[in-house]
């Protein structure tokens, strides 16, 4: 990758003050206060239902708050006009466990949608009817090339494998060049090779200035981030560098979660995969995480 120009028109400093979100009687987030500096990278861990995905939904104002506030670049996210909200969201890139691409559109158009927030009415109609114009299409080609899918631009997304779809989602990020990347368990459903490739690209984007917040189920991957935030039952239980995250703390974070055990015995790879499978199923049932 050469240079990544980062638009500095948007200040991505994030600050959460006592954020509380409830679904009925169940608190998904309880008094969460954190600050994230522009360009930081932050891994969030926690058991299923700890509030990780809800935190992401709050950061894009996709869920109503029951208390507290979130400010982006010093402005209250939940008080922005719909026009300003669009401007803020335009600078946020997302990537999910379930890819969340539009299955019927081609990989190229899905990648081009990274720029959807920047498109005017005319360009929107043009991309919809005739595909991306030369400028955008060049960016899309470069992005797909970078993730190794140069020949798949015209393939229907639903015909691609899971790992390939996740790489299309990464290509979308590369087209968008967001200031803030929200990655919601992007590795939970892809193979190890894709995991490394996707992680590498995310870190490159981060190195070029994008703030990166990533939800992870895998503590080992989380340890590769300079700052780890752990949620438990909607509360922040740990916030610091991986060096001070010890086994006792981990046990506390995952206490009572049947899908994760943190004893020191070596875990058989198959058993581990099975556990992750179970975790995914459980997450699907909580109605919060992406599926």
């Amino acid at each position, binding site marked *: 990758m050469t240079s990544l120009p980062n638009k500095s028109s948007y200040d991505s400093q994030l600050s959460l003050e006592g954020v509380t979100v409830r679904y009925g009687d169940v608190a998904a987030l309880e008094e969460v206060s954190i600050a994230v500096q522009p360009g930081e990278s932050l891994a969030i861990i926690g058991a299923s239902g700890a509030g990780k995905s809800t935190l992401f939904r709050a950061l894009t104002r996709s869920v109503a708050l029951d208390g507290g506030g979130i400010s982006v670049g010093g402005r209250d996210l*939940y008080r922005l006009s719909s026009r300003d909200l669009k401007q803020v969201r335009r600078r946020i890139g997302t990537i999910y466990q379930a890819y969340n691409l539009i299955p019927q559109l081609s990989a190229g158009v899905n990648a081009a949608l990274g720029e959807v927030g920047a498109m005017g009415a005319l360009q*929107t109609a043009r991309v919809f009817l005739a595909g991306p114009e030369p400028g955008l299409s060049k960016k899309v080609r470069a992005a797909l090339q970078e993730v190794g899918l140069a020949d798949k631009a015209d393939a229907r997304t639903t015909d691609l494998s899971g790992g390939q779809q996740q790489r299309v989602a990464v290509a979308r990020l590369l087209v968008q060049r*967001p200031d803030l990347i929200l990655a919601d368990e992007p590795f939970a459903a892809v193979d190890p090779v894709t995991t490394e490739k996707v992680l590498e690209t995310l870190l490159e984007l981060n190195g070029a200035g994008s703030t990166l917040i990533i939800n992870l189920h895998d503590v080992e991957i989380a340890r590769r981030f300079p700052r780890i935030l752990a949620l438990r039952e909607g509360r922040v239980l740990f916030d610091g560098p991986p060096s001070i995250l010890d086994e006792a703390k981990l046990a506390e974070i995952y206490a009572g979660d049947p899908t994760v055990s943190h004893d020191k015995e070596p875990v058989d790879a198959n058993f581990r995969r099975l556990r992750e499978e179970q975790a995914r199923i459980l997450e699907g049932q909580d109605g919060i995480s992406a599926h």
Partner: protein
Amino acid sequence: MASPPTEHTGVGGAIPRVDWKISLIVLVVLGLTGYSAYGVGFDLVELFSNAGPVERFVSEMFPPDFSTATLQATGTGILETFQMSFLGALIGAIAAFPLAALGTQQAPTTGASNSERLLRAIPYHLARFLLNIFRSVPDILWALVFVVALGLGPFPGTLALAVHSAGVLGKLYSETLEAVPSRPVEALRSTGASGFQSFLFGRLPQAASNFTSLTLYQWECNIRSATILGFVGAGGIGQQILISMNLFDYPKVATLVGATIIVVLAVDRFSAAVRRRLVY
């Protein structure tokens, strides 16, 4: 009663459990049946004892009239019916689309002000209201309205089919649009797509194949409806059937009805085959 055999412990012996809710439903259905049968004068004895006229009517239909003039009239009527149903479905689909788009619940308005919510609710409810009127008035009533306004002929019939089709398709389209997987749509919105953009790139592509299938099905329904719109003077083969009935020309009626059945079955088969291919 289909309740499972349950043994109550402590009561002794197997007592079939009677669910009072099911009993109540059975009672209500029985009551409504009796009430309705009494109301409409439902009488099987009368059906079979007075079957003479029916028998005469049916026997007089045979042999059907295959004269050149009748075949020509049948051909014209069938063609007209076909044209009415096709145009009706097409115009209906074109009118239904924007109304369905407006009448679709978009993403939640988290954090939006009250005036913003109101601004978004007005077109939604207006579109839903229009679609409900279009749909809940049967096409034959719309035909009556247009015949009164425009005079006899296939044109008012076509308009009647178009309005009713717009109502039905609009409802079905918007239900399809609302039922598509919402995560990809939300994902688009969370990266700054407007309501229009997330509709165009998120909902529409996911619903498009169903749209074609629904529209074909509506065309099928229109073919069936178009055959009777002629009874109120709105063109198509129904008009020919009515005239021949009034002239007691039963052999001609037989030809017309026979041709109608064949065409309806053919369109059904064709449309079903196409729709099967569309599903993916």
